[in-house]
């Protein structure tokens, strides 16, 4: 395996004499109006290669791979597959040629089962039964366990992604594109994925891998192509670079460090949760059990944990998307709010950023100004006597754009047209600009590039410094270590007692995330439950 890697080191390309690139783009260009999302990009993908595609949010990574996958037509330039020029009429042609893709945003039907979703994504004619059998076989071969009969809405993000990967693998692709596959995975899940990818590579397939996590790129990838502002700036061997030098190439300058203001003062409790228990709304949801914590102004509490352990349910209970019968379970700014709607909670000064940005945090087909109104209508002076103040909504868009450097093709585009990371910056910005007293945020930097992640984390710190209470749910332990004052762990619907960030070592958190307790007393309790 090691020998392979060295032998097939594809830079410079001459070393691959005898072989030709599996796929190459020549001058590939995609224009949206007068905005160049991809500007004349040349890229070569070799078999038996894991090729990283790096770049800031909005650099054009997703656009490039969508063109390669036939989802969008390039405005100029060409794509060569195994030496031959091809013009793809759509994804199914790409699939039939052996190009597979796993998207940044999942394309699954929530109320269909795993097997049905897979069947819908395949264009073959095999019977449902054969397909299910093959599904099980592929998922076993690659160590990606999936229960074909479960419905998608019951699954964690990691499991959903597994469906997409298995679905792509069932087409037996020669070339697999993964758009930010690890953004939502826990470190353990990511490690599992890397094993699968190494194995695919050993089988002679090529992989194009988009990620913002540079350490993991250095570990996994043989080649890296870096985009900036729609242009290719470099192709290099990431193993010979440092994370910092890769980041510099992406940004074209230095990346800022996040720094916490020293001497942040904590004030009164602004968000208190008292013995919150909630039966799941959905058959396979997680039951929240006796959750209690207190969050003071000026403080950031981090919630770690493997996805699907009740974080979504907790978010819904805190936001008011699900109400609790007992008003006292959630107290916002000293007011019992368990029974209050999300709008009323916003009026009390709370703000929320959900994990899923398209379809939950925003209405994908609506403009940014309308999406500003979506959460701003309650308490931001955007509505007067029932009438929308369009100027005020546009102003929020402009301010979020400026403060958080949201890059987009025009002033007020549809939410779905923004790159993933830029949309995230907009959503976080939209809420922070309301100066909330309490901010509840899930996965704040999921899919956000290093520079922008720093900006968002800094904004959360600044918000806390200004006196707000901030609750951050994240799977990224480094992120929590960087910004949180205390960290608690969610497991099977229960929340551990928070640890001071200084005491929360990876080992301790890892134990809690796996369901073990730190104290013998609690072990006994868990065994009894």
């Amino acid at each position, binding site marked *: 395996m090691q020998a392979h890697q060295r032998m097939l080191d594809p830079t410079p390309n001459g070393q691959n004499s005898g072989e030709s690139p599996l796929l190459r783009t020549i001058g590939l260009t995609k224009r949206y109006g007068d905005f160049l999302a991809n500007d004349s990009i040349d890229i070569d993908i070799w078999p038996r290669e894991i090729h990283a595609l790096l770049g800031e949010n909005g650099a054009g990574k997703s656009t490039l791979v*969508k063109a390669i996958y036939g*989802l*969008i037509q390039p405005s100029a330039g060409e794509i060569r597959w195994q030496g031959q020029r091809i013009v793809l*009429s*759509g*994804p*199914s042609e790409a699939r*039939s040629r052996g190009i597979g893709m796993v998207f940044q945003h999942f394309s699954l039907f929530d109320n269909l089962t795993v097997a049905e979703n897979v069947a819908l994504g395949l*264009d*073959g*004619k*095999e019977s449902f039964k054969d397909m299910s059998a093959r599904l099980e076989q592929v998922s076993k071969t690659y160590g990606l366990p999936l229960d074909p009969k479960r419905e998608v809405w019951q699954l964690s993000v990691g499991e959903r992604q597994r469906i997409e990967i298995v679905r792509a693998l069932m*087409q*037996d692709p020669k070339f697999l594109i993964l758009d930010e596959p690890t953004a939502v995975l826990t470190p353990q899940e990511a490690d599992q994925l890397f094993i699968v990818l190494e194995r695919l590579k050993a089988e002679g397939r090529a992989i194009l891998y988009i990620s913002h996590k540079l350490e993991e790129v250095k570990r996994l990838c043989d080649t890296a192509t870096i985009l900036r502002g729609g242009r290719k700036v470099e192709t290099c061997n990431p193993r010979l670079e440092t994370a910092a030098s890769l980041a510099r190439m992406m940004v074209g300058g230095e990346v800022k460090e996040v720094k916490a203001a020293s001497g942040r003062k904590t004030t009164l409790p602004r968000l208190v949760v008292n013995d919150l228990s909630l039966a799941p709304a959905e058959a396979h949801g997680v039951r929240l059990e006796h959750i209690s914590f207190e969050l003071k102004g000026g403080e950031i509490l981090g919630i770690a944990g493997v996805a699907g352990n009740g974080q979504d349910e907790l978010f819904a209970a805190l*936001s*008011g*998307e699900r109400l609790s019968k007992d008003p006292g379970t959630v107290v916002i700014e000293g007011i019992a709010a368990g029974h209050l*709607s*999300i*709008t009323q909670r*916003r009026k009390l000064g709370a703000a*929320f950023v*959900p994990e899923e940005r398209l*379809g*939950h*945090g*925003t*209405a*994908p*087909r*609506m403009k940014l100004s*309308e999406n500003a*109104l*979506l*959460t701003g*209508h*309650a308490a931001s002076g955007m*509505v007067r006597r*029932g*009438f*929308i103040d369009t100027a005020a909504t546009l102003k929020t868009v402009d301010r979020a754009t400026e403060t958080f450097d949201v890059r987009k093709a025009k002033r007020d585009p549809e939410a779905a047209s923004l790159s993933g990371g830029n949309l995230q910056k907009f959503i976080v910005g939209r809420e922070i600009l309301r100066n909330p007293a309490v901010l509840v945020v899930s996965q704040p930097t999921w899919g956000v590039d290093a520079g922008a992640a720093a900006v968002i984390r800094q904004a959360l710190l600044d918000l806390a410094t200004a006196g707000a209470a901030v609750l951050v749910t994240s799977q990224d332990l480094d992120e929590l270590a960087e910004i949180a004052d205390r960290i608690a762990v969610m497991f099977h619907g229960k929340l551990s007692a928070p640890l001071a960030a200084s005491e929360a070592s990876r080992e301790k958190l890892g134990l809690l995330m796996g369901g073990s307790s730190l104290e013998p007393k609690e072990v006994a309790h868990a065994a009894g439950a």
Partner: protein
Amino acid sequence: MQLVLEKRAERSGTIALVSPLIAIGLTIVTMVILFAILGKNPLLALHAYFIAPLTDGYSLQEIAVKATPLVMIAIGLSLCYLANAWNIGAEGQFLIGAVAGSWIAVKTQGTDAGAWVLPAMLILAASAGALYALIPAICKVKFGASEILTSLMLVYVADLFLDYLVRGPWRDPHGFNFPTTAEFDPVATVPLLIEGGRLHLGSIIALLVVAAAVILLGRTIKGFEIRVVGAAPRAARFGGFNADQLIILTFAVSGALAGLAGIIEVAGPVGHLQPGISPGYGFTAIIVAFLGRLNPLGILIAGLFLALTFIGGEQAQIAMKIPLDVTKVFQGILLFYVLACDSLILYRFKLVFPNRQVTRGAG
């Protein structure tokens, strides 16, 4: 070989505008074939349908009169459909509105009741339409009953109820046993806009309804709410909008508008209550709503267009003995094509060749 629908990556803006026009074009082509099969000269038939009604003042007024209920009902339906609430029973709400309003007209008949009668009729009709529409809405919200089925079934209830009234308690004693009420008094009649013409105040009301819908959907938070709930339900919930309340509200509004259209029709062009006051306005309005892209101005245009087919159908019957039912066929085909063309906005057709299957099996 296999024909599949494949989702488009980018939404085609041009097709969104062109799609209704394509649908109309395809409908006309189909109609030409149909006329030919019926043994009629297609060109003359098309002329009778689409050109002749536009050439004289009387027909033009008649188009506006027919478009009035279509537009009013379709505006209400578009609010429902935008919010993902499927009211199919506007016809029933129309009839109930007509009945409720007529009740005042019948009870005040021959008395010296004053100018309050007509406004009272309009208000009662709108309220009755709204209440009638609330039945399916509440069944949906409380019990999860399909509003499509319940609203549709209530059409027949309303139809038979009207039938019973005009054959029984409300029948005009001097009406030679015809199932109809007596002609309404002048105070219970919608005033004409042109002396001796057909155009009446209802058309103005319809225009006001269109204007109100433009403002509602474009400028108010309620209109925004309606659009978000339909377009992205989960985001709407996150925004604090309650889909169930909105089902109730949009059903009530669309029922009220249908009921209002009903009484305006009875107290206007018809002049009394009788069975058959509606040539299926409540159903045709569904076509109007979709042909108009659920957009108030689009609906105004689509309403006038479908009114034209009603008038044209009558003229074609008189001039060429083409059965009146052909109009219904026309409208049905039109709806079919509108929906089909709409699918092209989100999807595209694609031929898939199965030989790939073989390649995969081998490789």
